[in-house]
């Protein structure tokens, strides 16, 4: 049985978690073109190796970020979304969108990153 380290709830059985998919920058709904929506909604990097993704702890409805290796099936690291944003240099390296726009606005809310590693 696999254990995932939830930033909010600590180590829990993987059956409590739901896969959310690749972290992608969301286009601005007011301005996005059809092409941008296609890219955001459907197109995937689908990489073999280290990737950064959304995961959900279903019982607490809590979304967070995980770094995972899709070849070895290991969770490398889990962190809050704020902690992820605070690490933009790393984050932009793992969002190979090819687009010039920034992945997301750097927000550093509470300061405590809550980052844990699995």
């Amino acid at each position, binding site marked *: *049985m696999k254990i995932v380290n939830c930033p909010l709830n600590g180590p829990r059985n*993987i*059956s409590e978690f*739901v*896969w959310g*998919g690749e972290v992608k920058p969301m286009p601005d709904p007011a301005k996005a073109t*059809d*092409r941008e*929506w*296609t*890219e955001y*909604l*459907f*197109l*995937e*990097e*689908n*990489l*073999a190796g280290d990737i950064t993704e959304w995961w959900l702890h279903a019982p607490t409805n809590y979304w967070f970020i995980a770094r995972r290796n*899709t*070849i*070895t*099936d290991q969770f490398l690291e889990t962190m809050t979304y704020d902690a992820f944003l605070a690490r933009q240099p790393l984050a932009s390296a793992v969002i190979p969108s090819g687009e010039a726009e920034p992945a997301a606005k750097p927000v550093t809310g509470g300061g405590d990153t809550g980052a844990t590693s699995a």
Partner: protein
Amino acid sequence: MPFALLKYGLSREHPDDPHFRWKPDLKKTYDVVIIGAGGHGLAAAYHLAKDHGITNIAVLEKGWLAGGNTARNTTIVRANYLTPEGVAFYKESVELFRTLSNELDINVMYSERGHFTLAHTDAAMRTARWRAEVNKHLGVNSEVIDSAEVKRICPTMNVTDEARYPILGALYHPPGAIARHDAVAWGYAKEAMKRGVEVHTQTEVKKILIENGRAIGVETNRGIIHAGKVMQAVAGSSSHVARMAGLKLPIKTIPLQACVSEPVKPILDQIVVSGSLHVYISQSARGEMVMGGATDPYGLYSSRSTLDFKESLMGHMLELFPFMGELRILRQWAGMADMTPDFSPVMGLTPLENYYIDAGWGTWGFKATPVCGKRMAECVATGRQPDLIKPFALSRFSTFDLVGEKGAASVGH
């Protein structure tokens, strides 16, 4: 004929044509290069040679002949899909499968068993009715039956109220079948090679060569090969190979696990699927119970096996077929399924000229091997998208014209 057979049987030698006519060396140029020697790539090569007279073809395979998902699937063939586009497409495949042993001169052991999609909830009964109506409208034999009828056709199934999820009824599809997956691929390879097609194993494509916006060849571990046209048919590696052609696909690679029990005497005739319980089962010609469920809960490029899969599978299986408690698991494995968001495949033209794609076959592509080979060959030969596969073009994702098959494809493959 009987005398020839007798003579052959009594002779000390048993001369036979070699099954596969391998050619050791790669040429510098081919009219068509196909990446991936699974059932799909081989069927396309066969139809290019047979229907379109294009025989200067190389099928390049990084591993061994048909060792990918073609060798790993649970061989269910059916046409009882949900969308009119899907039903029309898979219906043609079922028709081709019926005569495939003759066509390829190899016994593909096509065995029509009857296919149940069990319903344990009102919602599932509604989907069953919907599918039955679409199926019948398009000439596919499907009907909704109640639990008493399920019991009559399949007496070994536990159709009582004692179960945690009692069976209310089922979508019954009499033409549902299983076949010998290896024989299908070997048959296409054999007949294609007989017509001059070359199949090269241990030949991995590492790069797609592009000039002025058109594909002109590939680079492999055995050197550069030029090609008039290039087609990819690489299942779980679809995103990886498409990236070499500068394409980003609507595909996530997710493992699909399966297993078989030790072989027993014939006890289960039908193919039984339960979308609500996420399990399916059939008995192979060898007597093994072939079992599986939905894809893993998250994406991965690994064929590792999990206890979670077996636990949830067996829990439900024991309720459906209590006699299974006596059986042991013999083998288990997984394949990399190339999953699309609408559970429909991606076939045909791409934005890159002279580059054709056959992908997004997820957990449902074995049954489509004949029709996909035939229609992809037509597409590559003519450079136009055949009508039957127009709805499955890659471009549907930019026009938001998806073909939603999840209700008929997420568990029953």
